[in-house]
Structures are given as C-alpha cells and as structure tokens.
C-alpha cells in the first residue's frame, strides 16, 4: 500500500473518531520509518482540518469532535516522544486558561482540541487561573498567544484585570478572550486582541494574529 493511501486512512480514522485504528496506523507508519512530523502533517492534521470545518458548519457536533480528538491523541501519544529533537516545528504555542472564579472548562477544552488539531502546542493552565498564573505560564512556556476563557458574566470582568496585569509586566504577545457572554465590543473595551464565537473561529483568529506578528 502506498504511503499516501496510509495517510488518507489515518486521516479517515481521525475523522471517524476511531482511536484504536488511529493508534495502530500510526505505529505501522512508524514501523515503515515514516518520520513522525510527516505523519502529523499528512495524516493527523488533514483529518482534524476536516473535523474543524464540519464542526464550524454544524455538520458535526461536540461528541464527534471529541472522539476525533481522542483518536488524534492516541496517535500523538506515539508520535510525541519520537518528535522530541526531531526538528519538527509546530505552528506555535497557545497558553490557555479559564479565569479566576470560574471553573467551567468545556469551551476552553474545545478550543484546545481544535488548536492541537491544527498543529499548535497547547499549554492548558486549567480553571480558576489568576493573573499571576498566566504571567508565570507565559514566562515558562513562551507562548505565541494567550487565550482567556470565562462562562460567567461575573468572571469575564476579570479578563481585563489579567490583560492589564500582563501588559504592565511587559507581556506583549496577543491575548484573546472567549466564552458565551463575551463579544467583540467587550473584547475591544478590555484591550484584548480579539475574540471568536466558537472554537473553529478561535483557530482562525490565532492563525491570523500569528501571521500578523510574523509580518511585523
């Protein structure tokens, strides 16, 4: 079987959310000496790209996205140790967290899944994150973008506190905000670099912000 056909099969396994099959196919490709970076670029990411577009267009919903992410994770579990030192570069790193006072994480987790599915490294700080935790995370992981999540109208106001604090500490990377009550007007008012209505749009926004940074 040609290697391209195997990449297609891997992508299909991701799209269908078949995690055991995705793991098996990944192991097979490794056994065939295919570089892990190529497996990621030609099998997993094209699969997750389809998932992202179908999710954006309401052709699939969260359960389907989640099982696709699980399939990708099964494959990445095999690839990641092999990619260390391989020179393969991810698209960028995103530092995500739900802000202080808020323990809701579904939205953040979906953004994380979609970002990883698009070739980004995600550092997830979890929930109930203080401004100091974001600063510490930024110092430790040198992300290309920081994403703040909040579900509640009472906690979304803390996003401004975090942004002001990070800017006062000379953190100049883009900071985006998201969550059910958040809109563009609010994002503008608190000095965020953008917001997105859903996870697929969040990936597009981050890609755009990173591209703008590179140009500058």
């Amino acid at each position, binding site marked *: 079987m040609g290697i391209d056909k195997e990449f297609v099969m891997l992508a299909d396994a991701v799209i269908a959310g078949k995690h055991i099959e995705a793991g098996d196919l990944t192991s097979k490709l490794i056994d065939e000496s295919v570089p892990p970076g190529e497996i990621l670029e030609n099998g997993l990411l094209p699969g997750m790209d389809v998932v992202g577009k179908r999710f954006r267009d309401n052709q699939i*919903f969260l359960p389907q996205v989640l099982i696709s992410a699980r399939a990708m994770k099964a494959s990445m579990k095999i690839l990641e140790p092999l990619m260390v030192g391989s020179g393969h570069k991810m698209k960028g790193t995103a530092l995500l967290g739900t802000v202080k006072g808020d323990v809701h994480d579904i939205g953040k987790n979906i953004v994380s899944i979609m970002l990883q599915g698009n070739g980004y490294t995600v550092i997830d700080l979890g929930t109930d994150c203080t401004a100091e935790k974001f600063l510490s995370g930024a110092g430790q992981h040198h992300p290309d973008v920081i994403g703040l999540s909040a579900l509640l109208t009472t906690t979304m106001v803390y996003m401004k506190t975090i942004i002001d604090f990070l800017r006062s500490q000379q953190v100049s990377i883009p900071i985006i905000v998201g969550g059910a009550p958040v809109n563009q007007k609010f994002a503008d008012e608190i000095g965020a670099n953008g917001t997105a209505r859903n996870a697929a749009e969040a990936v597009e926004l981050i890609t755009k912000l990173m591209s703008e940074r590179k140009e500058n």
Partner: protein
Amino acid sequence: MPLQIQDFGSVCCKRYGMLVQSELTNNKSQMTNEGRPLNSKERVKAAMDIRTPDRVPLMCQMSIGHMLQQLPVSPVEFWFDGDTFAEGLLLLREIYGFDGILISLHGHDPNWRNQIVERSNSEDGEVVRLKDGATMIFGNDDLPQVVGQEAPKLRLTEINSEDLPTSLDYIPVSQGLHFRIDPRNKFGVINTIVQKAGKEFSIHGEITSPFDYFLDLLGHQDGLMALIDDPEKSKEILEHFTRLIEKLAVEMCDTGIDAIKVSSPFAGAGFISPDFYEEFIAPFEGRISQSIRKKNVHVYLHTCGAVGDRLEMMFASGASGIECLDPPPLGNVELDHAMQVASRKGFVKGNVDSVNTLLLGTDGDIMSDAKSRIEIGKKAGGFILSTACSIAPRVKREKVLLLKEAVERWG
C-alpha cells in the same frame, strides 16, 4: 429576622420617555368570572393555557448571584437555609413585580448548621468547611465554588447498575457543584412559598434533566463521547435517571405548584446534534413532561443557547411550553419564528437577552427589546415575558424594573 422590603429603600420606579401613569393603568383588563381583574397566578395560567390574559405576564428566573446582589443576606445562609431562601424569593418577586416565582433549589436541610465544621472569611468570600470534607467559598455574586479537585468521574465501561443512585438526593447545579436534597424535607421551601404566595402568584418548581445528571456522572467530555461509544448503555443510564426524576417531579406536583421547569442546559446545538436530541433527550424529557401534565401541572423545557433547529421536537415532547430561547448572539432563536413553530401547541417564555440587553444595554435597548417581544407574544398568545437565561448577577435592579414597566405599558 425575616427579610423586609424596607431593607432596600424605595423600589425605583423609573419612568421611561414620555410614559405617564395613565398609560400604565390603561389596560383592557380581562376579568375573571367573578368580575374582578386577573391576579398574577391567573395571568400566568392563562398564558400557559395558551389563552390571552389581560396583559402579558412577566416572570424571570434569576441567577443566585443576582439574588445575592439584591438581598442583604449572607450567601452561606441563602444557600443552605430554606427559610432564608424562601424569604429572599418572596421579597425579590415583590421588588420586581414578577407574576410568579421560580424556586430553583429545594430540599434544604433544616439542620444544615450541624454539617458545618468551620466558617471563616477570605478575600474571595466566606469559606465553609463541611463535615464531609468539602470546602466551599461563598462570594456575593455567584454560586458557591467548591475548592479542590473534583472527584474522579466513573468511566462508562466501569458503571454498573449498583453505581447509580437509587433515589435522587442531589441537584447537579453547576460543574463540580451539587445541592444536597434532604429526603426528610424535599419540598419544605416550596411548601413555604406556596403557602405564603401561592394564591396570588404563579409558583414554579424546577427539576434537572436526565441528560444533565448523565453528564454530571461521567464528566461532560466523557459523557458526550459515551453517546457514540455506547449509545445503548447511555440510554440505560438516562432511563435510570428518568425514572428517579419522574418520581421526584410527580411528588413535587403535589405541593400545589403551578408549573415545573425542566432545566436542560446541555441539549442545545452548542453540544449535540438534532439527531442526538431526538435520540437522547426528547424521549426522556418527554416522559417526564407527560407525567407532570397528568398531574394537571404545567411543565416547560429550558435549554440554553442555539435551539432553533430543535424547536419542533421541544414542542412535540409533551411539555406545555418552552423557555429561554436565547436570541443571537448567545443563541439563534428569534421570537417570531419560535411563536410560529409553537403555533399554539405550547406557550413560550422568553427571550430578552440577559447579557447583551439587560446587563450591557441601555435603558432604551431594554425597552425596545421588551416592546418588540411583547408585541409578538401578545399577538400570538401563550407568551410570558422573561429574560432568556437567568438574570445575570450584576444586572442593576433599575434595569430589571424596566421589564415591569414594559409589560404594563405594552402588554
């Protein structure tokens, strides 16, 4: 000490634009058979029966955070103490002039103080350590926060029938937060409110959907994947919770309430497809709805976010109405479309945007949104003006009072 309206100073009755008193009272009142105007209870009932009352009723659900912001009360007492909770709900109805009261929690333990080991203060609010080892922080603008790691969830493959509860002794209020139902006092708070206000105002209880209990049991992500991994076992668990909830709901009907809200926040398009709604939501919520209707109590489904693609199924469930109907951008439901779909099959309760209109909008935005909804709802009949989702914590009292003004002016 009972809460009193004097504690709040005078209730602001702000005039809007050129509104004058005569306009407020110039309703063509529908009278009862006894020749008197409808009271609030009758007004809401007329709407739920899909008749046209003397004016559009007004009844909003409030977030716990909003209640705490409006009441001079300890958040700890308000959460645990049934009498304080009941007094607070009664007082807020009076302040806002709502036609009814939604009792969102029930089953308070009268001896709740015995469960507390320690109370202390922190910058985030009062900290309560409970006998069962849990620590909770009570701020004054939100639900309490449970500190520490959430207990690990069961995996679908590990769950046996003996792992499932045999009676419903908790309400999954929010992620990681349960409200314990005292089996000896399941409906104490409802009984109190029905006794004090049930003759004049519409009193609604609340139950949580089987799908919510299911996701709470498994964790949200694993629960959603379980629907694909093992749909039959998922349905068995849903069936189990449905039986328990149905029993609780039927018992609740005997308290004398007028309606029960079925809270089902995860059944919208932000989570699952219409196909999954049909398979995993509608049959179970439908059964509960039908059991409640058999007790001659109204029932309405509350699902947040985008539900435009499943309105038909919601109305076909056997419920007497639906509420929330978040408009864009939070959801995707326009009221005129919902009223067309309802087509007198069920009542509609909604759909003023609590965040973008009530919290962030101007007085003019609120009056304009309320007016347009009243006009649509009044024409169609079977409509109750309400915020779509709960009134957000930091919404100012004066903003909520504009809704009352709107129904009196245009309803």
